[in-house]
């Protein structure tokens, strides 16, 4: 090897090292769902346009992600530059100063295009602390063919009374068809998401203005009894262990007449590749109780936020701006089709004719999201925000404990009265210990 060749090689190596060293590497913690996997696949488009930024993905199970990110932020670990969190965490973490306000998303970002309900849930003191990647509310997904066969017509705004009656009529135990599939698996994000929204629509609330638990009030008794009766009369066997994924499978296999759950499920049940009933699904807004104008106020979004411990906030916001922009939606549409774009975050998507054509569930999804207001989850005054959850740090543990009590009712191991009494006692004890009840 001549000296010239050696020097040339050394220069190239140095140049490579210099390029690598100058590139900033973002570490993004995320969950494994379809939209996030798709985003990881499209990251090259971002790095191509921003050669000075590299991206590393860390995919974790939802609860592990919460633990990891909480530990990291609390101990100022600085391992993550972007974290994927729900709208439950955003206000809590923002108030703890764990998140940086997103004030560097750029002029082209069009913040006013974000759906008002979603934006409101991610803002504290009018500052946005996380950018929504996809959002969802809850709605009814039902089998149009079974309704027609039973001589039923889904009203524009159905009541729970109609739903219970229709569920009974379309239940066909002989053919293994249950009129209604609902979440029964215990967990704050599982059965309690549905039951809390149901209770909102019955006019109930988790706590009064003084944080006193309300399980001893008639609304909770009515809503839990209704849920238990509905599952007994028209639910599938083993409903107490069914969560989102189990009900999704049952519905896709044609074993549910109705399913009330997150709007994001619409794209799964209408996908002919996985669903046997893809062309038979109708959608309707979350039911109300007669005389109570409340659609449950279920609102969830997965969001990207920058933890306060990140040292690369500027680059992180650049990535967030790209991943939650209108341009990203167009990119996904071009690569994977309009039906696969992340839903529920921007008004412009629902005005897009191509999207409306590709996604039959677009209009009902928007209607459901527009109907949700997490600042006023129920008709009575409450000291908290959150529709299908209560946005306080204690809710994860409390919600899961109460979820176990209610799941036992569906399993036939407990009664409505016993479960409510136990829930009242547990919630009172926990809220007193946490200092909410003086």
């Amino acid at each position, binding site marked *: 090897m001549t000296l010239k060749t050696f020097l040339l090689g050394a220069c190239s190596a140095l140049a490579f090292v210099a390029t690598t060293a100058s590139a900033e590497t973002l570490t993004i913690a995320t969950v494994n*769902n379809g939209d996030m*996997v798709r985003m990881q696949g499209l990251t090259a488009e971002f790095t191509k346009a921003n050669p000075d930024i590299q991206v590393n993905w*860390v995919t*974790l199970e939802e609860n*592990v992600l919460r633990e990891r990110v909480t*530990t990291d932020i609390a101990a100022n670990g600085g*391992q993550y530059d972007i974290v994927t969190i729900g709208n439950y965490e955003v206000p809590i973490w923002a108030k703890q100063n764990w998140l940086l306000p997103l004030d560097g998303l750029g002029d082209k970002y069009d913040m006013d295009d974000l759906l008002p309900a979603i934006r409101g849930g991610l803002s504290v003191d009018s500052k946005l602390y996380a950018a929504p990647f996809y959002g969802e509310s809850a709605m009814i997904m039902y089998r149009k063919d079974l309704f027609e066969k039973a001589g039923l017509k889904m009203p524009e705004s159905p009541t729970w009374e109609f739903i219970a009656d229709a569920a009974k009529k379309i239940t066909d135990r002989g053919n293994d068809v249950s009129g209604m599939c609902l979440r029964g698996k215990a967990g704050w994000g599982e059965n309690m998401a549905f039951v809390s929204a149901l209770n909102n629509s019955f006019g109930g609330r988790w706590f009064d203005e003084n944080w006193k638990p309300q399980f001893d009030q008639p609304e909770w008794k009515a809503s839990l009894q209704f849920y238990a009766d509905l599952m007994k009369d028209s639910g599938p066997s083993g409903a107490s262990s069914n969560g989102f*994924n189990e009900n999704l499978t049952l519905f*896709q*296999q044609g074993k549910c007449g109705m399913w009330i759950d997150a709007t994001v499920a619409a794209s799964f049940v209408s996908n002919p590749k996985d669903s046997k009933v893809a062309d038979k699904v109708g959608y309707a807004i979350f039911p109300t109780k007669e005389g109570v104008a409340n659609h449950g106020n279920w609102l969830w979004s997965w969001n990207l936020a920058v933890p306060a411990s990140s040292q690369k906030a500027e680059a992180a916001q650049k990535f967030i701006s790209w991943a939650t922009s209108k341009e990203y939606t167009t990119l996904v549409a071009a690569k994977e089709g309009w039906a696969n774009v992340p839903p529920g975050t921007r008004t412009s998507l629902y005005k897009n004719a191509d999207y409306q054509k590709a996604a039959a569930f677009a209009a009902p999804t928007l209607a459901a999201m527009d109907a949700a207001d997490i600042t006023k989850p129920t008709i009575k005054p409450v000291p908290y925000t959150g529709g299908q959850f209560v946005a306080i740090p204690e809710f994860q543990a409390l919600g899961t404990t109460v979820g176990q009590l209610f799941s036992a009712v569906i399993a036939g191991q407990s009664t409505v009265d016993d479960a409510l009494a136990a829930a009242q006692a547990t919630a009172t004890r926990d809220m007193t210990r946490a200092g909410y009840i003086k």
Partner: protein
Amino acid sequence: MARSVTTGAKIGWSIAAWVVALLIFFPILYAVITSLKTEQEAIAGFSLIPSGTFENYITVQTQRDYFKPFMNSVILSVGSTILALIIAIPSAWAMAFAPTKRTKDILMWMLSTKMMPSVAVLLPIFIIFRTFGLLDSRVGLTIMLTLINLPIVVWMLYTYFREIPGEILEAARMDGASLWKEIVYVLTPMAIPGIASTLLLNIILAWNEAFWTIQLTTTNAAPLTAFIASFSSPQGLFWAKLSAASTMAIAPILILGWFSQKQLVRGLTFGAVK
């Protein structure tokens, strides 16, 4: 003289052994079966007959890089095991051949560290790792895995060393062997089956460790446990893909265990057959 065993008893014990073995192995077998099902089949209910699709393996391969976490698993498990043996052999020697009145207490104290739930020390360990820049590093995790498996390694080696007559070591000493030579040339060769089984068991324990390896890593040092965890999904079916990822993660250690089973069993029953 060996006791005579009737053919009936032999068959009976063999069947019992097979039933127990199958029960223990069944979760792994079912994970393999599930990995060959479609997502819909996987969640539909109990079934031992898959449709035989390899789609999940293809999806797992295309979605995530397998090689890097695999190499991390190899480095962490082998590295931590070697480090643990380097520390544990002299420690076990000292306790087996030069015990003091506090030896038993020390052994119990070492074991007691295993009785504490890991999460109880998560925050202090995390802060130490952060302070020394060890987060998401293979060096840091190797040290961590060494420390958490060290009590078991010391205990196992101590048990094996106790079976070796002290007179042999004394004889070596009388022949002029230094302490180092005594350990390396006399003790270690005699305890090879015990050391080998300790080594294999420790590699398996380190390979399967799923708390610290997930809590203290992000991308650079994340081993196969983190790879498996990444396939759990909050919305959407994932059991078949998760099973495929698990099968890919346990396959190397299963193969290692299969080839070294003779050594492993010999070592684990060392005390009983001497």
